[in-house]
Structure formats: C-alpha cells, structure tokens
C-alpha cells in the first residue's frame, strides 16, 4: 500500500509538470481554436534559459532558493516575450486565413525552434545546474517525498492558483474567457481582442517555461528536442481533459502522470511513452471532447 501511494505521489509530480505545459495548449486552443505545435519548444527554451541564467548566477556552486526564484522568473518572463513574438510575427498575420495555414505555420515555428536550438545551444545534452539543494527527502508515513518533488508541487500549485486568479478574478481573465467564446462580440464591447490573445500566449509560454525549469532540475539533462515528447504528452493531457478547458487540462495531466508511473511500476516500463499515444487514440475514438469538454460542434 505504501508503495502504491509512493507511485501515486511520484506520478502526481510528473503530472504537475505536464499540467503546466498543457495549460498553454488548452488556453491557446480555447481562444484561437488551433493547436500551437510550437508550444513544447517554448518549454525547451524555458529550460535552456534556466540553464544559462543558473550558470551565470553561479548557482551550481552556491545553490539558493532565492537564486532559484530569480532564474524561474527570468525564464518565465523571457519565454513569455518569445511566446508574444511567436504570436505577433507568425500567427497574427494569419488571423483570417484558413486554420490549416496556421497549423502548418505552427509546425514551421516548431521546427525553427528545434533546429535553431541545435545551432545555438548545440545538439549535445547539457547538464542543468543545481539551483537549489534538493538532496534531502521527507517521509510521511513511509512515503518518501523528495525535496525536488516538493519544489515541483509548490511551484505548480502556486502558478495554478495565480492562473486561476487571473482567469476568474480579474477583468483581463474575464475578457480571455469572453474572447474564447466569441471574438466579434468581445470587439463590440471594446475588448482589444488581439491584446487579449497576446496575453494568453504570454501566460501559456511563461507556464511552459516554469515546467522547463522544473524538468531541468528533476532530470538534469537538456537537449534541443526535449520539448517534443513533453509537448506531445501535455497536448494529449489537454485533449484528454477537454481541449479548451483549463481545469480539465490540469486533471488530464495529473491522471496522465499517475498512469505513466503505474505502468512503469506495475506494467511494462517500455510502454511508458506509448501510453500517451494509446490514450490519445482511445479519447479521440470514444470521447473526442475529452473529460470535461464542451461538444466541439458548438465551436464550429
């Protein structure tokens, strides 16, 4: 039993990271009805920014919690700006174009980042610096919780609460939800729809960057293609939760993280990555709108 709970805890910490990425997919889909395939690469860039910032601040030799927050913030802000630029330069000019054009552009942006990163950062894996001392572990009734998991849970919970606050308690958040329902009506009320879309990209990218830092710290290895698998799984989690639904993405991601962990522990470890694909196929066949999704027909 303790062992089972242990797997659940470990799975949740994976799931929390997927959730941070999945939020960006689902928010952008909600507002523009398209899958931003470059989102996983923003996650990768966020991790690399953490790598360079962490080293520049000398945190590897002197880990500190404040240093960690500085790196986290720096990466989130920079990635937010990159997300803004991606939307502004690549997607905004295509606002009235057929959706397929935007999708193809997104794939192009993704390849641009992946190959750009290989040129800029090198194709070889890099070791992520130790930002905080995470050597300690805690025990709650026999269940081990690593400091790293604690960091993951703390950061994700804080960020999700912040996002929840923005979406449901602020004027901009109300506008984001309004725009995701109808751009034209929002315009008629004077809501600057393009600006709201920019904010959505900035928030989603910042969350993905935070996930990048957490992944960098958990498996201290960075590579330019690391966004592909993480992005894909987060995307599946978002579809599973009901694409466009913010809370659904979080639940979907947590279920995904736990399921993977259970497959690794009790099933066939090599099937870990296959699980996401199997889940995607099953969801698309039996429940395309996901766990909490509205019927997609409503949007089309």
């Amino acid at each position, binding site marked *: 039993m303790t062992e089972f709970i242990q797997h659940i805890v470990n799975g949740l910490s994976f799931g929390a990271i997927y959730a941070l990425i999945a939020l960006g997919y689902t928010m952008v889909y909600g507002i523009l009805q398209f899958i931003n395939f470059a989102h996983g690469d923003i996650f990768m860039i966020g991790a690399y920014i953490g790598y360079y910032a962490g080293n520049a601040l000398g945190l590897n030799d002197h880990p500190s919690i404040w240093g960690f927050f500085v790196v986290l913030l720096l990466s989130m802000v920079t990635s937010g700006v990159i997300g803004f630029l991606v939307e502004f330069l690549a997607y905004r000019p295509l606002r009235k174009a057929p959706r397929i054009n935007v999708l193809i552009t997104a794939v192009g942006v993704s390849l641009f980042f992946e190959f750009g990163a290989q040129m800029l950062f090198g194709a070889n894996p890099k070791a992520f610096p130790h930002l905080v001392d995470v050597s300690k572990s805690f025990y709650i009734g026999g269940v081990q919780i690593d400091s790293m998991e604690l960091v993951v849970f703390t950061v994700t919970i804080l960020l999700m609460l912040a996002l929840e606050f923005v979406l449901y308690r602020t004027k901009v958040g109300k506008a984001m939800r309004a725009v995701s329902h109808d751009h034209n009506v929002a*315009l008629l*009320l004077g*809501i600057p*729809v393009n600006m709201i879309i920019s904010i959505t990209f900035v928030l989603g990218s910042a969350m993905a960057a935070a996930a990048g830092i957490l992944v960098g710290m958990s498996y201290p290895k960075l590579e330019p293609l690391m966004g592909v698998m993480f992005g894909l799984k987060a995307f599946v989690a978002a579809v599973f939760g009901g694409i466009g639904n913010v809370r659904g993405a979080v639940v979907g991601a947590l279920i995904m993280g736990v399921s993977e962990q259970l497959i690794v522990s009790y099933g066939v470890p090599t099937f870990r990555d296959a699980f996401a694909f199997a889940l995607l196929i099953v969801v698309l066949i039996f429940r395309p709108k996901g766990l909490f999704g509205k019927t997609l027909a409503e949007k089309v």
Partner: protein
Amino acid sequence: MMQETLLAFEKVSLSYGGIQALRNITFQIPKGEIVTILGANGAGKTSCLRAISGLVPLKAGTVRYKNEAISAWSSKKTHLVAGLGIAHVPEGRGIFPELSIDENLDLGAWLQKDPQVIAKNRERVFHLFPRLKERQFQAGGTLSGGEQQMLAIGRALMASPELLLLDEPSLGLAPQIIHLIFKIVQEVNASGTTVVLVEQNAHLALQIAHRGIVLETGELTLVDEAKNLLNNPKIREAYLGNS
C-alpha cells in the same frame, strides 16, 4: 426644426466575398430618435449594423458618426468603435454563456474606468431588468431566451452608450417579453440614447420608432416617419400583413 444628425450612411456598399449585401445606401440617423431598419430575410439589416461597428469593411462609401468618417478605420480597429459611445447588441444576443450575469455586465463596462459610474449603471440595469439581479451569479447560458436578450441589452447599457444598435431583439420571444423589452427600449431612448432598431416585426417596431428605413435585397427603398410608414399601403402589404 433642424435635427442634429448623429450617424450618416453615405453611398455605402458592402459585400461578403461575391455576395453584395448593401448597395449604395444613404440615410441619416437624427440624434435622440429611435430609427428602425425594416426588411425581409437577407435584406441587409444586420449588414448595416456591422458597417457601423466595423465588423465588416465597406466596399464603398462612408459611415459618419458625429461627422467623423469612422469607416476609414473602424474595420481595422473594431474594438475602438465602442469607445465612441456606440453599443451593438448583435443578432443572436451574443451573451457569454460560461460567464455569470455579473461577469457579462462587467465586460459591458470594459471601457468604463470610473467604478462609481459602473455601480450606477449596474443599478440601472438591475432596475430595468429585476430578473437579472435575481440571477446575478448564474451562468449566462442558463438564462431563458428573453432573459438573455435582457442581459444583452443590459450589458450594452453598462457602457452608457449614446447610440444603441439592436439587432432583432424580439426574435424568438413570447409577446409579453417583446412588449417588456420594447418598453425598455423606449425608456432608454427617452433618457437620451439614440437607438437603431433592426426588426422583422415591422408593426411593433414602427409603433415605438420615430422613423423607419426599409431595405430590399440590399437597396434602400423607403425612408419615412414611422406614422407614415404605418399607413403606407405598400408597407402594409409587404410587412404588416395588410390586415
């Protein structure tokens, strides 16, 4: 007496791809009036309102508001039109179903910075539509059709508009609700707001309007005072069931 013109169409043409929806339309909306735009399905009524709000660019001509040629920029900066004091309640009401009634109203006040004005407007909306107050925290999507129309109008009033554009507010509603809504439109107009009322229900619309504009397949066929239109045999035959 010379009336001040609030809004003017000057030779406006508008099309959707190959489909021409408005041809060379010219009319004026005098300040302080209720003007109804009448016409059958597809006559171009909604397109007139979209031309004002900038939701669709004009193919030719000019829309002037307070003498400014707003059509020069309105389709590129559509969200700025609301800032001129123009509130457009679209066809189908356009309420946000997942947002609560309160949140829908908050968004109506998007451009309103003064919290006191917002509070005053909200009070006014709840006074006009007490049912909205009862359902304040409910999701907009849970409202009945009539209540959704009330919310859509209420949301528009949150912006203290000078010009209110209403696109078929009576559509699909029970007669008592229509009467209630039309009564409120009259009240809003009496308090100084100019109203453009698009309607298929010509009889009702002409009863509260000062003036009517009749469109037929994208062309303007008649502009006259409402009482004249009510007695015009052609109108009676075409739109009033000639009873």
